[in-house]
């Protein structure tokens, strides 16, 4: 029989290898927010086939109207994607007339414009939405598992797996933002929230089996119960995963360019969600029972203030078992400060 729980540290390592680069990129470069979040305009136009237009010419034209920091991308079929500060309707018309004069007839394919105040508000609200979703799900899981001992553990482990998936997706967006100029728009947020939903969906299916088995095999070591439950639900996890991957891949390959990033985000997030529910969320339940200090150490490293508070608390009030953890906990917090501080310093050195 497969021993997933026994080899859990290997699986944690795989997660770390996937998550850490994204996390570093996130701290160093942040996210490349689209006009949905920052405000600005995006104009997509197509020039006639014979017209030989260079992006630099378009950029120059925008510069003449006082839109200096405009980004112009050209793609197949003489299509130009122009991002600039918020254009009002009149300026846009004037610019389009001027473009027609210089480069020949054009067709406006798409125009989006978001005022700066709305953009900022969307950004604030987006963080709120993610937090709200996480909170609502934690409450729901704690409620659904209320008859099990330690229901909050189930909720918390599902949330940790969820944070893992968020980090995978957001880290990927950050890396691709640097490499390919990927943008984080409201569709990305939609994909992210769907991934959150799915991540929890998968975790619940496995947890549900653990809930059932811990009643049936009361008295068995938790490692065995969890491992058995994961194996029992493995076929289902993989098959469900496959059907979703089939449908999303079809959408990715044939669905057109407009939603390609959206679908790719979903695809990666959902794969990550299945992985984390099997290899992170469930083994973490075992970890919590057997070696809770490891969880505390990791948390201390990632969120140093929490490590500081917990470390001091353990030092003062810890039991015979938990007092020795305090030192390592504080050390981890220190390590976290150094690592995050170092990255932030490095970020300051990078020219924007």
């Amino acid at each position, binding site marked *: 029989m497969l021993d997933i729980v026994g080899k859990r540290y290997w699986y944690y390592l795989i997660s770390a290898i996937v998550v850490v680069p994204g996390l570093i990129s996130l701290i160093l470069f942040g996210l490349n927010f689209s006009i*949905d979040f920052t405000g600005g305009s995006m104009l997509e136009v197509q020039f006639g086939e014979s017209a030989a237009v260079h992006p630099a010419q378009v950029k120059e034209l925008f510069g003449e109207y006082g839109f200096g920091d405009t980004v112009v991308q050209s793609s197949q079929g003489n299509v130009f994607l122009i991002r600039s500060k918020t254009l009002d309707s009149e300026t846009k018309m004037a610019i389009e007339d001027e473009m027609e004069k210089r480069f020949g007839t054009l067709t406006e394919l798409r125009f989006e414009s978001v005022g700066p105040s709305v953009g900022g508000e969307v950004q604030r609200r987006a963080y709120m939405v993610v937090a709200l979703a996480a909170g609502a799900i934690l409450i*729901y899981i704690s409620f659904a598992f209320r008859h099990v001992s330690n229901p909050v553990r189930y909720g918390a482990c599902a949330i940790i797996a969820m944070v893992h998936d968020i980090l995978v997706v957001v880290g990927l967006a950050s890396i691709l933002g640097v490499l390919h100029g990927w943008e984080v728009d409201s569709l990305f*947020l939609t994909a992210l929230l769907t991934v959150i939903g799915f991540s929890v969906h998968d975790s619940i299916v496995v947890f549900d089996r653990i809930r059932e088995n811990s009643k049936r095999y009361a008295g068995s070591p938790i490692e065995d119960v969890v491992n058995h439950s994961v194996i029992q639900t493995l076929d289902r996890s993989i098959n469900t995963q496959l059907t979703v991957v089939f449908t999303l891949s079809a959408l990715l390959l044939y*669905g057109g360019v407009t939603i390609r990033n959206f679908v790719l985000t979903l695809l990666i997030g959902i794969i990550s969600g299945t992985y984390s529910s099997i290899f992170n969320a469930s083994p973490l339940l075992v970890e919590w029972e057997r070696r809770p200090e490891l969880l505390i150490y990791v948390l201390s490293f990632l969120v140093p203030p929490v490590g500081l508070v917990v470390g001091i608390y353990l030092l003062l009030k810890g039991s015979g078992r938990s007092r020795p953890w305090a030192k390592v906990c504080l050390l981890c917090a220190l390590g976290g400060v150094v690592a995050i501080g170092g990255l932030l310093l490095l970020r300051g050195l990078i020219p924007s």
Partner: protein
Amino acid sequence: MFTDRHRTVALLGCIIVLALGAAWVDLPGNPGIHIHLGPINVDRDLELRRGLDLQGGLEVLLEADLPAEETVDAAAMQATRAIIEQRVNGLGVSEPLIQLSGSRRIIVELPGIEDPERAIETFGETGLLEFIHAGYDYLIPGAVVTTTEEVSLATPVTPTVMITATPELTPTVPLTPSVSVEPEGPVYQTILTGRHLTGAAMDFGELGLIEIHFQLNDEGAALFAAYTAGNVGQLMCIVLDKEVVSCATINQAIPDGKVRITREGGFPPEEAEDIVIRLRYGALPIPLRVETSRTVGPTLGEDSLQKSLLAGLIGLTTVIVFMLLYYRFPGLLADVALVIYAVVVVALYEFIPVVLTLPGIAGFILSVGMAVDANILIFERMKEELRAGKGLRLAVEQGFSRAWPSIRDSNFSTLITCAILFWFGSYFGASVVKGFALTLGLGVVVSMFTAIIVTRTFLRLIIDLDVVKHHRWFGV
């Protein structure tokens, strides 16, 4: 068992009726619903509504152009929305959407519009209300005139008189709002504009007859006093966006900016109300600015629709083949349930109606994968029970009952995210986000029904028929 069997057959009947009904709704060229039964009047075309990103169009978020700390009057915002709706209707767009969003925003969605700039101008402008000097020309309400727009006047003042509307101004005067002739001829002098107006109301005069009152600010009062004094006996007209609303004869000079318009026999209440609304709100009661706008050209939209439909078809086929190969006989039943699912969901899109956007289609395709998830959970459970040596009938029943808590809890968590997304999408007029949340959420609910009720009914019936005997048929 006898009654159970009956119940199962009855359920099958319901499923067949539902599927056929849904298929009828889906088929193009159905006549729609037209019911006229006493007080009930339902007229609905049943067809898929395509969102802006699929057919091209314009989506605008308008925001009150007032300082952020100023609270916006809800009634005034409501009136603004109504005026915009009126103006949009003049554009001849099919299925426009104009709705309030929060306390200071209005969302306008105009699918299939061809000239977005003109559209924004049409409903975004704060209409121009003017009072013009018509001399001795009686102007028919609805006529389009040319005005100076600039207020400039200086005529001698004579003491207090009052205004009475000309007797011609009765409902019998043919109203011709369709006057779209190019304005030509005289340029009328503007006496006052909307900014001079501080209030307007309908009131009852001495004999209980309806009259219209309005007040002017100090500048307006001074201008009006000078004007009325010099032009007693002549006509003054109220003009909104160059279109004549109403005319009245000046009976006396009015020095204090308190104006009364009367008519012999009084105004009919509807007309008075109409004039007051235009006086009060002719200019949009709240100035607006375009905060966010999105336009999509029709060609891009059409292309996206074709592609995503193809993708959906390919995805659905792959899932069907996979289920058949992996789960064999129950897989076949799940496939039938899946097709029923797709038919029902599309029918619901037409019925509710759900405006289909590109991410909405993605939500639908994703929900196909999820619809199958419930079946996979059940079938895996059945296989386990079969392997444990249980009989077919028991294994099927336990497969359903034991998989249910997982299905319920996991789908509920997806519904929670859908609800949050829907709320987020509505708040910012991001119809794409809303569309995705709606189709995914709807898919989750319907799929629970098809994957559980439909599949279970099929399985029970077939087991009762005793044709399926080997566990091999279940992939065990």
